[in-house]
């Protein structure tokens, strides 16, 4: 691979809308493995539309390669639509679970503060261990591992990435426009976040 291609590689979030079909995961995975490409993260689950599944796939590649891959994926009979976006164009999260001995947490007030600072939430509290959950970007969830390690972290697991595309059109509308690739207009991020109360009044 050329120097330039290395420089131009970045993380891409591929969103695939598919029919719910046995064997499709293999077909999609093969498109990557055939080219000797590594999938960094893969999540698949039912979407908001009945019978349609949504894949989130993360790969580190150049845009040229990603766009070709996406066309190959879209070629599969059961694939409805494929999008790809850089990290800037999506809002993404990963979820992590941390299992820690309960006695340590209970005794050390400092831990509790650290957990709160990191937005962690207890999901299970048992006499022998407690499970915390946090969601965020990789650095954030990694950070909490570092924090909990000295307090006897027993087990850790992280989910695949899920990503919401910032472009506000959504899939429902795109489905109708299928063939047209008109650029959508800019959306200001977190526009309403500061005035949450006013927007979401009960």
């Amino acid at each position: 691979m050329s120097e330039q291609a290395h420089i131009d590689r970045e993380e891409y979030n591929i969103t695939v809308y598919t029919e719910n079909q046995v064997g499709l995961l293999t077909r999609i995975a093969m498109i990557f493995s055939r080219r000797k490409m590594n999938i960094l993260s893969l999540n698949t689950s039912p979407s908001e539309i009945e019978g349609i599944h949504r894949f989130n796939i993360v790969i580190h590649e150049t845009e040229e390669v990603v766009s070709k891959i996406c066309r190959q994926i879209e070629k599969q009979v059961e694939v409805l639509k494929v999008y790809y976006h850089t990290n800037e164009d999506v809002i993404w999260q990963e979820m992590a679970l941390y299992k820690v001995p309960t006695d340590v947490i209970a005794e050390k007030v400092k831990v509790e503060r650290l957990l709160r600072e990191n937005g962690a939430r207890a999901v299970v509290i048992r006499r022998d261990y407690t499970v915390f959950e946090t969601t965020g970007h990789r650095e954030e969830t990694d950070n909490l591992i570092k924090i909990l390690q000295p307090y006897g972290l027993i087990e850790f697991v992280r989910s695949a990435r899920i990503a919401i595309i910032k472009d506000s059109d959504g899939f429902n509308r795109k489905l109708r426009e299928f063939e047209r690739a008109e650029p959508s207009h800019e959306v200001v991020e977190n526009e309403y976040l500061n005035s949450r109360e006013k927007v979401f009044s009960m």
Partner: protein
Amino acid sequence: MLSGGQALLHALTVEGVDTIFGYPGGAIMPIYDALYDFEPNIKHVLVRHEQGGIHAGQGYARSSGKVGVVFATSGPGATNLVTGLADAQIDSTPLVCITGQVFAHLLGTDAFQEADVIGITTPVTKWNYQITDATEIPEVLAKAFHIARSGRPGPVLIDITKNAQLQKFEFKGYTPCDHIRSYRPKPIVRHEYIRAAAELINKAQKPFVLWGQGVMLGSAETEFKAFLEKTGIPAAWTIMGAGALPSDHPQNVGMLGMHGNYGPNVMTNECDVLIAVGMRFDDRVTGRLDKYAKQAKVIHLDIDPAEIDKNVKTTVPVWGDCKETLPLLTQMVETKQHPAWLAKFREFEQKEIDAVIREELFPASGEMTMGEVIQQLNELTKGEAIIVTDVGQHQMVACRYAKLNQTRSNITSGGLGTMGFALPAAIGAKFGTLDRTVVAVIGDGGIQMTIQELGTIMQSGIDVKIMILNNQFLGMVRQWQELFHERRYSFVDITSPDYVMVAKGYGIAGKSVNQREDLTAALQEMLHHPGAFLLEVMVTKENNVFPMVPQGCSVSEIRLK
């Protein structure tokens, strides 16, 4: 109430299937049992090996334009289809393959003759599906045919467990499918791109058309010719596209690629606008991509959006079925002639005739060449025969020199390059077009890969002409060893049986010739013989196919010697 097997055969009759190539076995017996009652509406051809069955299905599909249908049993029967599936996938051939599978309750238990057929065939099918319940059969079959033949065609495999074949259910009839929500066989034609393409073509000084099999797959031969004749643009073909425009059309300037003609290869790097119609810029056509047509603006007409920009960056993509896009384009282009530009191709052609072709087609002395055999065949068939080729030197020679007056007359394994393809494919091609002469041109290596299909010819009584060009070598590999491995002829020296005796053993007439003066009469005898005939022609041992674009070179570095 019908059994799954009966429902399947009902479905096939509604789809208009008249011929099936297959081989039975335990796991597909209920379907074969049902087939017993469907004769003679459906003809079943018993092949000698499932690879022969699927290549026959390919030959049938390619000659007739219909979907080829193949039956095989589970496990080893199904795995024997893999080469043909890969071949059909890369050459966009519509097939529906039905494989038997073990009982559903045995799936995944390493049962007798069980193989993960869906897993194995996934990378080599356009679509595949396993049926474990008979009630799924009508709908899945309908989808299979729709997927196999629409858009960019391809092979589909349906694996049916034995219990589903036996299961009785209330059959509510069969409705062919023409829509699947997630499947868009044809991209919507974008008129702005047609306009942009027409503008480029109208302004071009040295436009050049490359066409591939897409023209035939879209049944757009007439539309293609109309476009060419209005624009006056010279056009060259890939081996998969051969015959879509008659060989002697004044704007047909020859074959592209590694063993293509000199002019079209060199001129690819001189044209200002390159118009690719239904072809995919295979590396055998383009040579080195970084030195391929860099000076040209590229217009690419293709039904498969994944082909656009895959290998060659396009200036204007014309997505869609060329049957629809070509007429739109023809409407917008100006009527023109390019006599000077066209003449340049003819100049190169003359140069190639002097350097290579005359000697190859009309040698005055010495042993026979493959070229002169094809030349003689042309004379005798007047370019009306279907030529089915195997893989190797003879394939390149046949593709270069065969005269093709009609479309769907050149059947070859272009993408996968499968030796052993020609004999069974010729059988299929003949079943697909009973009124045409079918000549299989095969090397002494390739014939021995599926020679057992002589048995299929014997039993079915099908009339195919088999022409073995025997150079006593795996010729194409030998040529590369000569040119690129200092003549180290590692395992390319292949001996042959007495083919005429072998044919005789199968009840097929045959003849072998090694003298030039006997060639014409022998070819005549083959062509006029009622029924199948095997002709072996001994040709010179160490002849090379030229011109040639050596691997890793640009198309303009094509060598005449």
